[in-house]
């Protein structure tokens, strides 16, 4: 076994893409908040980004095989933390998601996402055949199901949903059979259908969640609620036009018509001020980031590394898809932030730690 890898083995392209996206985020957070009571938020975000960078490098130094070794313990810690949150967590914005750490509130579910990526990577790496048996599939499902149920209990539908693509992408790469794909899809369709079907959704969704679904389907019925949010977001995006209104000049953004414009709807603010050309840049960067992750997975030394990287890709991809689709009114409001652009400590930390795992795999690709 060679010595620990050097810095030139890091994926500098990936880091460059990452840094550019972060820069766009900071610019837009500044634009969205500098004239309001939230002024100075971009500095806080920069602080989080700095912490994230350090955490990323720190995590990349620790061989991922050692991390995977501890998967059962991590899983236990994760589940315990989720239970703890439900028992003693702080309630903010109507949900119990936060526990205080070092004077800041951390969202435990962000950490759990990371743990599930690790746990699933280990689980699927251990599957030796090219085809995933139904037994293994169910096992994986149960592994994900427990924390998912606990997160739903907080309630945090958005984060809970992120666990699903981790399972789907992992299972797919582990050799999901087409029969199982069919069953999977059927179950998925049934679940989505039931969410949109009031007589059933009444039993499985919280009132505010059902309201979001309704206002997504009929935004005009709910002019000030989340239908209003979606509409205002669409107005912001649409009014930006091709060239955008210019930095700090988006009326929807500056006058506060865009809901949480510095966080979940930051893409809306960006699209208004920078126009379609700005969107092209941002989405291009995200696409490059994701493709770069897939490339890293393809070059991973082993299945375990590949699953780790693809777990991260699945999580980030899902975040981007759901958030951006919401901004343009293609999906209901779920409260999923846009990775690296949205303001938020825990979410930023999660992304950097996840990228840390990717780097971890990357720098060890030639190690034997």
């Amino acid at each position, binding site marked *: 076994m060679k010595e620990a890898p050097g810095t030139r083995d890091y994926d500098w392209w990936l880091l460059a893409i990452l840094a550019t996206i972060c820069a766009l985020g900071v610019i837009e957070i500044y634009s969205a908040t500098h004239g309001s009571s939230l002024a100075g938020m971009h500095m806080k975000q920069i602080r989080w980004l700095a912490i994230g960078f350090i955490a990323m490098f720190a995590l990349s130094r620790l061989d991922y095989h050692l991390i995977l070794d501890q998967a059962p313990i991590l899983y236990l810690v994760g589940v315990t933390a989720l239970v703890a949150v439900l028992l003693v967590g702080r309630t903010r914005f109507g949900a119990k998601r936060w526990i205080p750490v070092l004077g800041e509130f951390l969202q435990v579910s962000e950490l759990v996402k990371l743990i599930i990526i690790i746990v699933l990577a280990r689980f699927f790496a251990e599957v030796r055949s090219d085809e995933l048996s139904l037994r293994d599939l169910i096992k994986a499902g149960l592994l994900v199901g427990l924390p998912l149920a606990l997160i739903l209990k907080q309630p945090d539908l958005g984060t809970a949903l992120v666990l699903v693509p981790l399972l789907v992408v992992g299972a797919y790469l582990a050799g999901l059979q087409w029969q199982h794909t069919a069953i999977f899809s059927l179950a998925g369709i049934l679940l989505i259908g039931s969410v949109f079907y009031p007589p059933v959704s009444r039993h499985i969704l919280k009132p505010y969640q059902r309201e979001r679904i309704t206002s997504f389907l009929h935004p005009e019925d709910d002019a000030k609620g989340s239908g209003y949010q979606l509409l205002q977001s669409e107005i912001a995006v*649409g*009014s930006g036009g091709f060239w955008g209104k210019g930095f700090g000049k988006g009326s929807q953004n500056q006058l506060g018509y865009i809901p949480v414009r510095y966080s979940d709807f930051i893409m809306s603010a960006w699209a208004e001020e920078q126009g*379609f050309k700005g969107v092209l840049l941002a989405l291009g960067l995200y696409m490059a980031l*994701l493709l770069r992750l897939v490339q890293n997975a*393809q070059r991973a*030394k082993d299945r375990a590394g590949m699953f780790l990287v693809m777990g991260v890709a699945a999580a980030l991809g899902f975040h981007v898809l759901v958030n951006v689709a919401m901004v*343009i009114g293609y999906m209901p409001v779920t409260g999923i932030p846009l990775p690296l652009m949205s303001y938020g400590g825990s979410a930023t930390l999660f992304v950097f730690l996840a990228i840390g795992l990717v780097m971890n795999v990357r720098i060890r690709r030639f190690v034997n």
Partner: protein
Amino acid sequence: MSYWFGNDNRLPQQRLAIVSYVIVGMVGVLLIGFWKLQVIDSDKFLQWAERNRVRSIPVIAPRGRMLDRDGRVLVDNYPSFSVLLLRDDPAQVEKNLPAISEGLGISLQDLKEQLQNSRNLKNFQPIVIKPEASKADVAFIESHRSDIPLLEMLMVHRRRYLPGGFMSHASGYVGEVSEQQIEASNGRFRPGDFVGKSGIERQYNDLLQGTDGMRRVVVNSVGKEVDHLPTQEAIPGKQIQLTIDYDLQQVAEQALSTREGAVVALDPRSGEILAMVSHPAPDPNDFAIRVSNEEWKQLNDDPATPLLNRAIQAQLAPGSVFKIIMATAMLEDKVPPLSFTAYCPAYAVFYGRQFKCHVFGKTSGHGVVDLHKAIIESCDVFFYNVGQRLGIDRISYYASHMGLGRRTGIDLPSEETGLVPSEEWVQRVFHRRWYPGETISVAIGQGAVTATPLQLAYAIGGVAMGGVYKQPHLLKDAPNVREERFSISESTVEKVTDAMYGVVNEAHGTGGALKLTGVDFSGKSGTAQIINYDLRSRLGKNKQFKDNSWFVGYAPRRTPEIVVSVLVQAGGHGSEAAGPVVRDVVKAYYDKKMKKTDGTVTAENKETKPRDLSSAAPAAAIQPPLNTRGAAVALREPQSEDPR
């Protein structure tokens, strides 16, 4: 290294490649979404964003003020606030309606009705839902800016009229524009706009009404104003000067007092109306804001018809005042000749019917009567004979050429024509022949003949002017004042005006009690039955059937400066009820004229120059008339001081 970690490097490259395609496809779909919003529908969303951000609030133009002939303010404005409802988002309006209804104290029913009424308007036009906002309303709106961002305060100018219904029929009043007016206005009027509904307010609405401007403000998502955009200024309405003399108007109002009737004073040399009173008079301040349907119905159904401008709309038998037209016709046609005399035993019989002659202050008849005596003592029998000989068509000819039976053309809406009957008229309206007996009644201003107080002032003034009829008007600088000339011979004019001078100044004249020293005051009284004597005696002497009292006076005796026509309904004898009112107004006219020529009134004049009033303090400027008016109001309507 852990036991489970073999050298398992079989990677599912194909599936990873598929994942790459999925990523590209996903970003592609999102980009299509952005393309649709930002490129295809961009204009629509840009508009929506603009509508979000910019709130347009009308700036109401103040109506022009009305000044009297000396520049004193008769009608002006005071600032007030209305509540506007912004209707950009119908769904939100619907949702917030109950809260608005409760907060502003407007019934939900009423709100819905108002919304319904404005359904044809563009959504971005706000509507007035409460014309007069109280302090509590303002507080409600301010405190709910974020959760009910649909309400806005609108500064408006309310009309302020002199209190107690002073001159209210001439000035008219403003009211909310009706649906028909909106439709007919070609987009000029919007619901909630105030327009002139009657009188001068309506006649000169186009002058008085300015053009509203638009204030555009930038509001943030909680409805707070954060910036201003260029404002489209309101263009105020024009101030107009009337021919009304405030002093004469006041004397006329007081002299008529609470009696039902009308006073018209005009200068026959120019046609300028100096005073115009109609009682009872509603106080337009009471409905300057918004009248409920109920109140309106009450005003309309009031048996005293307060909304009727009696000066131009009361079409009543002119009674003996009509004898001046008869005398002119007789002298001009020489039928019968001037030498004609009649014997009056207090009645006469024509076509088998007895016609009475009401003899003022006497129990027997007038005896032998010539034209002069017939006018000053107002002998009916003489004119029965004249009428019989002239025939209805000659009477009709003279009456209509002297201004009766058609509009004088005064610059007020809804002037009535009165009626001068003729053979042609009965044929057209009743499809029958004219009965000669009807001519006998018409000869003394009874029967079918009717006239308005204004028409009588116009007719008598024209005779005294020697056949020159100037179109009556209220606007001081009225363009194109029509002048009609009806050639009456000089001797006729002299004889008729001599007789009218005699009415007041000769021993047996019916207006003998009205003499004014130093003034050539002339005139003619009239006492018109509203039902005939037979019916009246059967019903008993109820006040309802008291005669209408007329007096039309003027001074001086030739080429008069002022003609005053007064009607006192159910006032009894003309010279007793209406005569003193005419005298008071004529006296006031000369008193003022004397003062002016003595030079004692100059200081007052300077004080009331219109320019001084308009620039400094309108509230203070209106004060003098208000104060002096106070006593008169109390005298006429003591109950009006009760706080309601």
